[in-house]
């Protein structure tokens, strides 16, 4: 198969195009989940919170102002076809796209270049980029602008194989309950199971890029997702932690093969401002 010469400017331009709309227009899947939540919610505080959040989506979209002031850290998943050759540095191209997109749409610059010295980089770079090689000559770009109020409530555990499915359930429920109002519920829950200490966290993050309501392709895990969502929504945390039915909008699981000694689990929490986009280049 012929090698495709891939202009990295395509990546830069795609990222630049995504930043503004990601911040101002909630994805259709999230909006629908929130509207459904507002229909079935019975907590009095919860009902007014959900109404406010739906109003907020409308204001943001019409007035071109970010839905949330935390316009996030850019997380990119790049699935690169084996027959692709980049004509330049894709990491630099992505960061240039972030730089232009965040500046041109007047988004918040939220990144410090060093975790302890803490000086703001001023252009929201760098993005967090994870690359996976896949067959073909296309590049699939998954873009998330991840807020960190919710990120800070995420957790990882190395369970014992004997802990099994119920152990994973307890860990996810405990994480969602402890996150409480800090994570800006209604939340979206990404769960990674398997792999290793490092890979399980990435699997949980990747799970967050899935549309809310889109079930796992394996019926066993699709059932587990539904049952975890029901359990989380019995905690009563509710929208903004004020009490109610809607603590989470969806649960997405990603699994990985793992070692005979291990049952890693990671729970990555997203808020209701679950910005995610995908484009095939």
């Amino acid at each position: 198969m012929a090698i495709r010469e891939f202009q990295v400017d395509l990546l830069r331009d795609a990222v630049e195009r995504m930043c503004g709309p990601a911040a101002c227009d909630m994805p259709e899947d999230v909006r629908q989940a929130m509207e459904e939540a507002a229909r079935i919610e019975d907590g009095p505080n919860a009902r007014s919170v959900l109404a406010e959040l739906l109003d907020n989506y409308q204001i943001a979209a019409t007035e071109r102002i970010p839905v949330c002031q935390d316009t996030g850290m850019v997380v990119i998943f790049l699935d690169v076809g084996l027959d692709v050759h980049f004509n330049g540095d894709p990491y630099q191209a992505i960061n240039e796209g972030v730089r232009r997109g965040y500046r041109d749409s007047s988004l918040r610059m939220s990144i410090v270049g060093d975790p302890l010295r803490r000086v703001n980089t001023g252009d929201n770079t760098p993005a967090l980029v994870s690359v996976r090689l896949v067959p073909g000559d296309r590049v699939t770009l998954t873009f998330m602008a991840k807020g960190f109020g919710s990120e800070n409530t995420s957790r990882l555990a190395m369970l014992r194989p004997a802990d099994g499915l119920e152990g994973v359930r307890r860990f996810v429920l405990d994480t969602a309950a402890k996150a409480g109002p800090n994570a800006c519920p209604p939340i979206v829950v990404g769960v990674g199971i398997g792999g290793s200490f490092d890979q399980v966290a990435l699997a949980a993050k990747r799970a967050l890029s899935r549309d809310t309501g889109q079930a796992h392709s394996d019926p066993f895990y699709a059932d587990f997702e539904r049952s975890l969502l029901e359990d989380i929504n019995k905690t009563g945390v509710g929208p903004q932690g004020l009490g109610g039915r809607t603590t989470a909008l969806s649960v997405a699981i990603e699994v990985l093969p793992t070692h005979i000694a291990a049952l890693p689990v990671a729970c990555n929490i997203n808020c209701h401002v679950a910005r995610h986009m995908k484009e095939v280049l």
Partner: protein
Amino acid sequence: MAGPGFISLEAPFDETKARSLRSGDRILLSGTVYTLRDAGHKRLIELLNRGEEPPFPLQDAVIYYVGPSPATGGRAIGSAGPTTASRMDPYTPQLLERGLRGMIGKGYRDASVIEAMKRMGAVYFAATGGAGALLSRTILQAEVIAWEDLGTEALRRLTIREMPLTVIIDSQGRNLYEDGPRAWRETQGDENG
């Protein structure tokens, strides 16, 4: 925005007013508040520890934990919802001792903050997290008054009108983050234990 069941309140306000507010009260807050989050709190505490005067009067002040997005289209400010308050907990008791009366944020506070709130007579409000566009409309003026180099984390004086808030923790330590979910669970009966 204004509806039944809302209490109108003007910031700054005094201890007597603070002690009259109850966990669960819905508030429309107007007046002057100051924005401060992680990096700004660190600077304020360092300055107080050196014995210098703060850049704004702490007595009866209300701090809004927010790092706004840039202002556009003739607005006073960009998207401006609350950030997680617990990151400010290490600094907060000292500010309450100096007269801080109210805090606007979202999320839990630790025991040392709640204890200082009870002792000094202060109140913790939540604004709706993730409602930055809606809350932006209630901010009429925004002016950076210190630490401009911190960008979004600079200290700003805001003039606000009818910002919708909920009293989460009152001066007696009652906490809606405990009472609200418990009340909902009780309405669900045995089904949800």
